[in-house]
């Protein structure tokens, strides 16, 4: 019960002074990312304006963080260890909600603009993601697995954290570019913008959605493979038979 009260108290000042709070008008360069044959990744521009009450920017520095987050999935993370001279999967841990993609950009390094508690509440930063580990009780072990997961996803380009890549113009306009690799999973992504001042999040907006989907031939292939697998398999066999036969036929004439 105690934490509920604490939580209520924390949000109280925000709701009381709702009229004095600036408003965010965020947008993205593309509402839809289409994956097709030449897709090698994309670059998404997240930008927007900060509208202050009575049009006056407050004293002091403001900071902006933008987050692009893909849908969360449950996963098993396996860890290899050297046993009897060979590396095999020896240990594993389950996570109930791992975003398929998570990128955060901020105007300054995150630890300089928000305190650790705020960062944890808003899941700001790769080390603050709530991955909901399950099964593993030992906290140290859990930490090791979480770090391994974040490191792996980071090197695959699916988890990103970039400090200083949000540009703020005249304390009103902001913009940030986020890289999306070609291996990005499909789904509905949410773009979140947070206005930060004095270590606190003043206002946050997460209403902008970006759809990542396969289109055209790529969409057809994955739908067929997933839902019409008998037909897909037959097609695959026929295509390779025809190609092989055709090539043999052509080369015989030379």
């Amino acid at each position, binding site marked *: 019960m105690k934490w509920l009260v604490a939580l209520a108290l924390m949000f109280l000042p925000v709701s009381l002074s709702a009229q004095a709070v600036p408003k965010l008008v965020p947008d993205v360069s593309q509402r839809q990312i289409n994956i097709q044959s030449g897709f090698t990744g994309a670059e998404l521009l997240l930008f927007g304006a900060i509208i202050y009450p009575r049009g006056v920017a407050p004293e002091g520095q403001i900071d902006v963080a933008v987050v692009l987050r893909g849908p969360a999935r449950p996963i098993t993370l396996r860890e290899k260890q050297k046993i009897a001279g060979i590396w095999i999967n020896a240990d594993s841990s389950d996570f109930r909600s*791992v975003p398929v993609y998570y990128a955060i950009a901020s105007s300054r390094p995150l630890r300089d603009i928000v305190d650790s508690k705020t960062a944890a509440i808003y899941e700001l930063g790769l080390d603050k993601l709530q991955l909901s580990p399950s099964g593993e009780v030992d906290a140290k072990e859990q930490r090791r697995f979480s770090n391994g997961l974040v490191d792996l996803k980071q090197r695959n380009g699916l988890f990103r954290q970039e400090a200083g890549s949000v540009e703020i113009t005249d304390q009103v306009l902001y913009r940030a570019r986020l890289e999306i690799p070609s291996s990005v999973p499909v789904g509905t992504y949410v773009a979140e913008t947070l206005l930060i001042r004095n270590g606190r999040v003043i206002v946050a907006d997460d209403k902008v959605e970006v759809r990542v989907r396969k289109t055209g031939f790529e969409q057809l292939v994955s739908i067929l493979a997933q839902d019409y697998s008998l037909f897909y398999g037959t097609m695959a066999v026929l295509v*390779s038979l025809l190609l092989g036969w055709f090539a043999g036929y052509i080369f015989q004439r030379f």
Partner: protein
Amino acid sequence: MDIYLPIANLSVNALVIILLGGGVGMLSGMFGVGGGFLTTPLLIFYGIPPTVAAASASTQVTGASVSGVFAHMKRGGVDFQMGAVLVVGGMFGTAAGAAIFEVLEAVGQIDTVINILYVVMLGSIGGLMAKESLGSVLAVRSGKPRPAAKRRHHPLVASLPMRWRFYRSGLYISPLAPLILGFVTGIMTMLLGVGGGFIMVPAMLYLLGMGAQVVVGTSLFQILFVTMASTMMHSLTTKAVDIVLAVFLLIGSVTGAQIGARLAQRMRPDYLRLFLATIVLLVALRMALGLGWRPDEIYTVQAL
């Protein structure tokens, strides 16, 4: 030229895939093997997920063996009766392979098992081949003709009940022997994405004692049908067949195979076999080292 693979979910350089297919195709044209044992590891090395690599490689082997089967059929080099028995065994093998695949994937050991199987199989077969071909190369060099190998099937094969006559192979043996052989290669096809030619051919020669003139054709015949079955099986179970990947591999490999076949005519068969044995042993060695080296990724993610 970048191309997005819709099942592997990543983009690759199409030229690299075509060249990879071409290189493997050249070897397969020279030696009459499907080349799956090289394609799958090379694809994995390039960053394609192992399951997609194995599934798509088996699709590619289908295409790579078609024209070979036709060519051998024309000159009577296929024992259809023997082939049919092998194919039936192979079908059951792919089904069993699919079940094994599922179990191993669930416990997270599929990659290790695939690697160990590669090392054991390539190592032993490459070793045998190297020994045999080195022997005959040395014999030719020293000028002494080697005594012709006696064509006999293994005593174990002879002890199996219920014998059939396989006229084209010149055999009177129990169909259980090729059935089991087909079954084992079927499992390999499903797990490793190999056609199994490099197991089949020596097994047919040295275990079954088949006539050399029908060995390659019959092996190709079996590979054709079993890789078709394993493509179907992968499509239905792992859903990992990437048709785009398979097509690009095929474009390379069918071209390479023709070049390889022409090159092979100019080379001495003994040296050719020694060359193949060297490649097989190198792949085995690389994979064996890979088991002991610290892998690039300690952690792997599996969707629940």
